[in-house]
């Protein structure tokens, strides 16, 4: 179970704007899922450590070398707002 206040708090943490109506729906739906996954409490996990990777893997290392991305202009084109070649965002101070 999850309360409406908790849903509002999570929405804030997740940076998702929600309406009152959505809060109600999410409260219902998230509660249903959380009740359903309760089943995992039946499993004895006392001596088990959590999975770290799905198969035994060695470190994947490579040379730390800079590769220049050829399409920088294409990335700049994707900025939602820009000033010259800068991504324009709201200031935080």
């Amino acid at each position: 179970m999850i309360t409406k206040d908790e849903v509002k708090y999570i929405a804030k943490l997740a940076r998702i704007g929600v309406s009152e109506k959505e809060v109600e729906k999410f409260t219902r739906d998230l509660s249903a899922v959380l009740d359903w996954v309760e089943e995992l409490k039946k499993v004895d996990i006392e001596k088990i450590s959590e999975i770290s990777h799905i198969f035994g893997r060695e470190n994947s290392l490579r040379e730390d070398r800079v590769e220049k991305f050829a399409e920088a202009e294409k990335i700049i084109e994707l900025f939602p707002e820009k000033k010259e070649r800068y991504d324009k965002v709201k200031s935080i101070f």
Partner: protein
Amino acid sequence: MIKELHEKLLAGKITSEKLTQNYFSKIKKKDEKISAFLTLTEDLAMAQAKKTDEKIKKGEEIGILEGIPGAVKDVICMKGVRTTAASKILDNYIAPYDATVIQKLKASGAVFLGKTNCDEFAMGSSTEKSAYAITKNPADLQRVPGGSSGGSAAAVAGDEAVWALGSDTGGSIRQPASFCGVVGLKPTYGRVSRYGLLSMASSFDQIGPIAKNIEDAAIILSEIAGQDKRDATSARSAGKRYEKYLEGSIQGLKIGFIKEHFENLNKKVKNSMENVLKKYARLGAEIKEINLPHIRYSLPVYYIVMPCEVSSNLARFDGMKYGMRIFDQQDSDLEKINPEERKLREIYLDSRRYGLGEEVKKRIMLGTYALSSGYYEAYYLRAQKVRELIKRDFEKIFASSQKGVDLILAPTTPTPAFKIGEKNANPIEMYLEDIFTVTANVIGIPAISLPADPVDWEGKKLPVGFQLMGKWFNEEGILRAAYAYEKSS
């Protein structure tokens, strides 16, 4: 199908340009009803086709996939092409780079017809959660094609593409393949590079082929497999030319099945699955009942860990660097914050509110909750421990063919394709669609879905698939057993 087309190209019976044009005319005729495609890449495709034809004319050698048109799920980046993940938040996103699989397929000379529809950010089992269109099942337009790679499966099943790429996080290649009556393969985790795949849940995601037959799926896998320095989780092994290992007897192959998988099935589907087991017995395989005590927890494990990874992966869609930026909402809770910071906060809240769909938001919030302080141990950590137990069950059963099995056979879906709108009321009901497919993602093993006998269902004959799962990196084994079945059909 790919091989035949390749031979026709070589013999000069068709040209790649003609073939590609044919597919575009089929798309134009059929896709109004099916809605498999979100974006068509006609100029790119025709240029690729032309290149192949010129090579053939000059007598140069061409690869097996060269000049053969296919479709790509819209969660895979293709340079210069709109890539939306079927989400409004990426409505205007033009990928500035190619995913590794696209680079590889370009090098193979494959032709790209366009980008296919899917559930938003690959979250769903019906393609109804796309922000753009609902794809219809070519076998019955009243029904869903499955999801999330529903556009890719419908394109192949509806003859709008020879082959397609999908992505599979909890069954998103295999379930639509089952619903549409085609072949879908989820490779071992790490077999195919994820670079350029829009991440959903990074410890589950894999790209794989959807095709008309086993050989075609094997060919596509051969083209896209291999280690990639841009994906640190890609496996070292280079992969193989899988299509060269399909022939051969499956005499003595040990195929396991889990009783519970079959017990609660609908009678007609059960009948179809039992016919599959009987056929394998006739082909010389040894059918063996097995017990995997923790497999029943796969789905709840998935529905905790996956949203956690989703909440983290989708944090990047915040209206800052690319995608939709919206700023129009007044939030009274933010009044106390200084006005500058408030503007920034509102961009986050509004861009995500209007840019993301309900299912996506739900999963982000579920993950945020499960990872939040005080809940992490109870949800995420516990689920990852149970995941380890599930993995151990499989390691044991695959450890020796003598005591265990070589492959595991299961249904792909509990039923054939359901009707559009049928499963929207109860969220859990849609999640249960993944019940047979999700385990392969939870522990990273390869799994393939291929058509079993179709079933008579509400007055129609509808396709339904079965699955073969194998040991980590044993794509060869599942493909060979799948091929033996297909050939005997």
